[in-house]
């Protein structure tokens, strides 16, 4: 029968609620119908932000991880849920961004009076709740197979969001995304099988205690990292991302770029920093860093050449994902982990704001051609201002979150003596400045014929976009507490010294 303490005294049960609430939401929306999708989802999301705060508070107050044994069974037989500083931070960010997406979601996901339900209404709200559930499961999971199920949940939620509009272009993009994602999960599972065969457990904590540097471990980590990198669209296996993220409805693009790709990335962090710290080898780290550098440069250059705003933002995502992978060659530096996670957090806010702003602009203009954006600055000032704020964060202008990220990564690369990453970061910043300038300049000019809005744009949607962009800056203006939160649960690294 189940042994002693099942949960941390403070917030253990809330870990379960973080999973149970979205799942309950899926059931409720499915049964009640698309008409009530918005109401049910928003209510649960507000509660979700509360739960995430409680979890973060619990981790913060005790200075230790919060755990929960599902069913009371301890690993290796059972499954443990675990929230350390990384999890708590990401769960909080996820709940806020998902709430924003829910508030922003446009009227075409509402059900017109007289009809019980539309396809888009049921699908969108169920898929949004599923993304939320899957992200929480990824951040709280401490068992490699539980994480595999969470990854599949994330894929099945993300793929239909891409082709929600049903056009041939989005269907092709969705199918390609699905095939890449399935390949990624398959390789991940293959690695997990090898780990179980060698060590007899899939619990991250137990594995970390038992692993030895041997070929089985290296092959497993290599396969899992390759699969997860494909799901995170790391250059050069990024080709599925731009059409997929640019073709989805704006609220869905925000979720996909801000959150979904971070899920598989988070698992690479778990593998490299929690399962097999210091056993991954310098060369492997340099390879991942090189691919990240390739992403930064390639994504930036291609973004410069885009004619459509949404494609530009999507290629910007490809580039920004590259920064995440710079933490692996610098893994011995505590600043690198903090820098990578900071990038994940501030990029989530900024990119979500950007896609949503682009959606509002395209809704008014009827298109998203950059060359013909003139007049939108005067028509939607709040939106364009928010877009500009988000752009400043991505470029890395102080005091934004993006600026602090770059500081951390730069200091890590100099301390480690690997100055070439610093060069890449600076080049990336220049390129980002270039394509953001290219995108914003037309928006700030005046057209010959003044632009008239076909319909008034909802203030709520504009405020939501602005709030997200401001969050990207808040993270950079008050970084001390988040950095300390991220450090909780790290057993192998010394204290972070902020630059």
């Amino acid at each position, binding site marked *: 029968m189940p042994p002693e303490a099942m949960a941390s005294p403070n917030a253990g049960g809330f870990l379960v609620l973080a999973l149970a609430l979205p799942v309950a939401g899926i059931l409720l929306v499915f049964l009640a119908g698309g008409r009530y999708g918005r109401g049910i989802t928003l209510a649960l999301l507000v509660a979700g932000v509360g739960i995430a705060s409680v979890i973060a508070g619990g981790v913060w107050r005790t200075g230790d991880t919060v755990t929960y044994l599902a069913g009371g069974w301890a690993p290796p037989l059972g499954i443990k849920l675990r929230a350390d500083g990384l999890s708590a931070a990401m769960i909080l960010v996820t709940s806020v961004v998902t709430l924003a997406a829910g508030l922003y979601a446009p009227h075409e996901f509402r059900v017109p009076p007289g009809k019980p339900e539309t396809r888009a209404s049921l699908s969108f709200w169920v898929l949004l709740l599923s993304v939320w559930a899957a992200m929480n499961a990824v951040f709280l999971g401490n068992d490699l197979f539980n994480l595999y199920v969470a990854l599949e949940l994330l894929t099945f939620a993300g793929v239909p969001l891409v082709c929600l509009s049903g056009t*041939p272009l989005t*269907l092709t993009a969705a199918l390609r995304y*699905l095939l890449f994602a*399935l*390949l990624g999960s398959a390789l991940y599972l293959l690695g997990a*099988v090898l780990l179980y065969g060698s060590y007899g457990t899939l619990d991250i904590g137990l594995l970390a205690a038992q692993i030895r540097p041997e070929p089985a471990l290296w092959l497993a980590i290599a396969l899992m990292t390759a699969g997860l990198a494909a799901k995170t669209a790391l250059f050069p296996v990024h080709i599925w991302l731009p059409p997929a993220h640019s073709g989805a*409805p704006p609220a869905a693009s925000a979720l996909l770029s801000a959150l979904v790709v971070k899920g598989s990335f988070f698992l690479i962090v778990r593998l490299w920093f929690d399962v097999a710290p210091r056993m991954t080898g310098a060369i492997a780290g340099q390879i991942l860093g090189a691919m990240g550098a390739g992403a930064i440069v390639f994504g930036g250059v291609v973004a410069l050449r885009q004619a459509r705003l949404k494609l530009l933002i999507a290629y910007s995502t490809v580039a920004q994902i590259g920064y995440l992978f710079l933490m692996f060659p610098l893994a011995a530096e505590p600043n690198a982990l903090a820098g990578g996670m900071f990038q994940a957090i501030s990029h989530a806010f900024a990119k979500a704001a950007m896609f949503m702003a682009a959606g509002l602009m395209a809704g008014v203009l009827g298109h*998203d051609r950059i060359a013909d954006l003139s007049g939108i600055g005067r028509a939607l000032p709040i939106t364009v201002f928010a877009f500009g704020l988000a752009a400043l964060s991505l470029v890395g202008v102080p005091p934004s979150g993006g600026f602090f990220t770059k500081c951390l990564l730069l200091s890590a690369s100099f301390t480690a003596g690997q100055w070439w990453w610093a060069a890449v970061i600076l080049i990336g910043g220049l390129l980002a400045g270039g394509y953001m300038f290219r995108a914003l300049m037309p928006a700030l000019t005046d057209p010959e014929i003044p632009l008239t809005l076909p319909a008034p744009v909802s203030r709520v949607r504009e405020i939501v976009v602005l709030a997200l962009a401001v969050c990207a800056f808040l993270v950079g203006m008050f970084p001390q507490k988040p950095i300390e939160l991220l450090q909780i649960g790290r057993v192998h690294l010394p204290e972070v010294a902020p630059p």
Partner: protein
Amino acid sequence: MSIATIFGICAACLVGLGLYGLIAQPQPLRKILAFNILGGGIFLLFGAVARRGAAAGMGGDPVPQALVITGIVVAFSATALGVAILLRLFEETGGTSLRDTPKESQSEETNS
């Protein structure tokens, strides 16, 4: 050479075959088939691991076997989703190519 080892090596070859098919086959339906072969290989490998863990009067370690059952169901769902997208794509375009045609990739989207 035991039964588990034989099927373990068989599983390794299946993984290689499935992986090759997934990458090299141009038609999406064949890619989905290859993915199923890949999945079958991974599960079979897990089964070989389970067989090696036979103890306590049982023929195999029950935990990997349970995980494989879960995995089979998930793999089927993935196949069903892939087929559904493929059929819809065919209904819309009359073809099943994954390649973007040049004129499509420059067309305007009027999402809002």
